[in-house]
């Protein structure tokens, strides 16, 4: 088991390297002019100035040189009024992902603001979404073709078919417009004021956790309040997916011989399902769960738009719609990283559940 984990972890840098190469190739499809936005905040329209910048950052050098520079940055020497300054600029490994035209700030700053928001939403959604879906799927499978199964399946189909923004807006109308219970946004204005003030220490950038660490229960509750509707919307829509996969996987598992063996041993039905059926049935769900988490972390645009939640999805979508290539590529890179890591975690989880996997 340990070997397996180690082997998987060793793969990670190579996979990450592969992702960066892929992104870099996409980047190279742009003209040098477009790529200047990685180094310079405002791309000048003046032709001569542009060429100067291209020369300065070596945007016309061979691709391997550029790849290196893209990763590690360039050293730029400028002489002004007899004073020579040498500075090191750029380099995604140094944290410089370029400047985002649409967000009016460096991409790294944008990510640093948006990712924790998405992470927080994910943390609170994962359990309801995945656990809820599994629970429903198991119910459906165990009560196969009975009323409970039908209810579960209909529930799932409706959830999956319902357009998320419609559902979101309906929830807003029902639980907010008239009553003000669950407002859109991440926190209320009064809470935001406190969070932005110097007395509030941002340990994790996750508002709920920071609120508890700062002993502000009121802010903690306020942040939770804002997440209720987005989580419910997410859950209702994504339950269907987990539910269906769990259900069909469970149905198939229940047909297996070892289930009969387990029953033949006199084990209670609950034990049979829990100990014998579920671990086997959950394997496809692990993959799905990994995908769900990645999807949540990359941002859920529509939920974020409807609930005005400042997550990754809305930022990426806005950049894409305005052709802010630098930002889009940075997001792709970041999401690629998350995906690689998530897959490793999924693989390890697999090995934990299914010992047969540990062989390879």
């Amino acid at each position, binding site marked *: 088991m340990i070997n397996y984990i180690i082997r998987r972890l060793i793969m990670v840098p190579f996979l990450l390297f592969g992702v960066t190469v892929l992104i870099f190739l996409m980047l190279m499809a742009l003209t040098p002019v477009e790529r200047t936005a990685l180094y310079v*905040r*405002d791309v*000048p*329209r*003046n032709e*001569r*100035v542009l060429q*100067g910048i291209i020369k300065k950052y070596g945007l016309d050098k061979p691709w391997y040189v550029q790849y290196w520079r893209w990763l590690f940055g360039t050293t730029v020497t400028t002489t*002004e*009024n007899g004073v020579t300054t040498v500075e090191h600029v750029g380099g995604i490994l140094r944290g410089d992902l370029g*400047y985002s035209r*649409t*967000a*009016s700030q460096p991409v790294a700053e*944008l990510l640093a*603001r948006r990712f924790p928001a998405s992470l927080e939403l994910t943390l*609170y959604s994962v*359990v*309801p979404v*995945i*656990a*809820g879906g*599994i*629970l429903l799927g198991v119910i459906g499978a165990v009560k196969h073709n009975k009323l409970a199964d039908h209810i579960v399946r209909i529930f799932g189909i409706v959830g999956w078919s319902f357009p998320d*923004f419609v559902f979101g*807006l309906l929830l*807003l*109308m029902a639980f*907010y*417009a*008239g*009553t*003000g*219970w*669950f*407002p*859109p946004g991440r926190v*209320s*204005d*009064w*809470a935001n*004021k406190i969070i*932005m003030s110097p007395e509030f220490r941002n340990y994790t950038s996750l508002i709920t956790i920071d609120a508890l660490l700062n002993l502000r229960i*009121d802010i903690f*509750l*306020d942040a*939770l*309040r804002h997440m*209720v509707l987005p*989580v*419910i919307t997410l859950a209702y829509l994504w339950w269907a997916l987990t539910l269906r996969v769990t259900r069909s996987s469970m149905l198939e598992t229940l047909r297996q011989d070892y289930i009969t063996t387990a029953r033949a041993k006199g084990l209670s039905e609950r034990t049979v399902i*829990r100990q014998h059926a*579920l671990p086997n049935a959950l394997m496809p769900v692990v993959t799905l769960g990994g995908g769900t988490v990645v999807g949540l972390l990359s941002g859920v645009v529509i939920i974020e*738009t*409807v*609930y*005005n939640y*400042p997550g990754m999805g*809305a930022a990426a979508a*806005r950049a894409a719609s305005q052709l802010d290539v630098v930002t889009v590529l940075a997001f792709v890179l970041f999401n690629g990283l998350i995906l690689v890591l998530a897959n490793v975690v999924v693989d390890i989880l697999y090995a934990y559940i299914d010992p047969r996997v540990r062989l390879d």
Partner: protein
Amino acid sequence: MFKKLLWPVAGLLIIAGMVLAACTTPTPEVIKVVETVEKIVEKEGETITVIETKEVVVTATPEPVKPVEFKSADPNTMVFVSIGENIDTLDPAWNYESDGDAVILNVYDQLVTYKGASATEFVPALATDWTVSDDGKTYTFNIRKGVKFHNGADLTPEDVAYSLRRGLLQGGTNSPQWLFTEPFFGIGIYDVAELVDPEGTLDDDPEALKAADPAKLAEACQKVVDAIQYDDAAGTVTMKLATPWGPFLATLAQSWGSILDKDWAIENGTWDGDCATWQNYYGVTSETSPIRDKVNGTGPYMLESWTPGEEKVLVMNPNWWRTEPVDVGLPTKPSIERIVLKGVSEWGTRFAMLQAGDADIVSVPRGNISQVDPLVGEWCEYNLETAGFDCEVKSDQPLRLFKGAPDVSRTDVFFTFDLNVEGGNPYVGSGQLDGNGIPADFFNDIHIRKAFNYCFDFDSYIREALAGEAVQVSGPLIPGMIGYDVNGPKYAFDMDKCKEELQLAWDGQVWEKGFRLQIAYNTGNVTRQTIAQILQNNFASIDGKFRLEIIALPWPTYLAEFRNSRLPVAVSGWIEDLHDPHNWAQPFLIGTYAGRQNLPQEMWDMFNEMVMAGVAETDEAKRAEIYKQITQVDYENAIAIRGAVVTTRSYWQRWMGGYYYNPIYGWDSRYYTLTKQ
């Protein structure tokens, strides 16, 4: 043992916890509401009493309304929700967007400002009074004493001079500085780099500028310094213009005339004030300006935070200097503690926020007004003559609608004189006056131009394309500016007169043979398409031989053809930079559009003389006269069909008060006059 149940139970607990959290509505910190009090100010022997009002302010004819019953949950914070938050910069010398203005005009002050809702009269701001020399080229301002910046520093004349000099020297052809370079250095000079190289090769090129001849650089800087001089002892700032300039005060009153604290700015990395180094700060762009996201002004509000893409928060400046109101009935101190400017892109969500009372004003897209109108209890209609609103309470619904105030853009129909037919021109048909086309100089005949004007059904256009919410304008200007006459001359739809003009055109040849030409608009623009259709229908209804064909062109093509004077009839629009008649007269009569229309030299010369006179005239009354003349000449020559200006709608919660409309600011209010209950 219950491992399987643990997850769902935990999930349910979390959800239950969230529900519980919701039931405990958070208690915001209780802050004392600052109430303004009567103030009696003595100024030059007069006693002015200022009273804080909680009623809707209508400048000319105030009508009492009763918002008393409407109370908000948080009267200390105003929330304005628009479609998005994405300004480039808060550096006043660089900002050229109205969204940026919304903040800058509230956190910074200028030397002068507008008198209430008037777009033509000025009252003192950071300057207490000013004099203009007889030749109109020298302005001397007395700078107010005792004014403090948000960081506590004192305002001095040096700050004023520094602010304007720095703006000019920072330059940038995409910035609003060209509005200063023309009056200070001469018409046609759009950037300070042109003081170094008049050919304009150094524009926007900081590297090249730095490499220029140091003597020339120093000279250019010196010109700037000489043009704007200060005297701390005397408390004055003197500005010397290259030419008399009517719009000068208007330019100073805008956001790019904001005054910074020199020490603070230098601390944060702007130009150090030394003519030896200015070239190092030139061409700093909107995103790289060091004060792009920092504010230290003298204004009634301070910038508390700016989260790009989400919101900006302003807080009240309790030490704001203003003691005399900008107009009768307006307050001198801000009353709302916090202003939150949020961006929410989804209409449904904005609407929900309005209904929940979490938003005080929201942007309503035109297509959704039918959703919001049922919630409007108080209807306020803009009165063009009084420049105020007439309000009527119709029900107990919570919203108030301000409608009818004119926007600052217009769509016209342009005729091209002496069409460019080189290499063939597909829009003129046969190219001859044979009933199957038009000659290149078709529109040189005034009767044709008048016929088009008379055959255009303005009412139908306004009703159908603009949902009835627009006003037809008189002349090339738009309402609410010096020289605009509400009752000025304009064409009315008259089929008989249209026929008459057609009969007179081209010595009767047109009436005999008819014509055929193509009228163009840019693909997707429904308003412009509708205009074309109206003309087409009306001419066709006179006789089928008057054929207008409508053609949609992709925008780049459309623009190119228009610029090259190849379109016989083009529908196009303009949004103003500056609410000044020069900003309308210039492009339409001698500048951009005149060029595309290929106005005959004589006509152009005539217009040029009048426009130049208008811009140089500093006496307001005289200026107004000149522009009225211009309007008359424009009407008589009918070089285009002057269209309609769309009127705007703005939806507010009825617990808000203190709003007045000034076309300069549009819907970006001066927040300090607003009240909230």
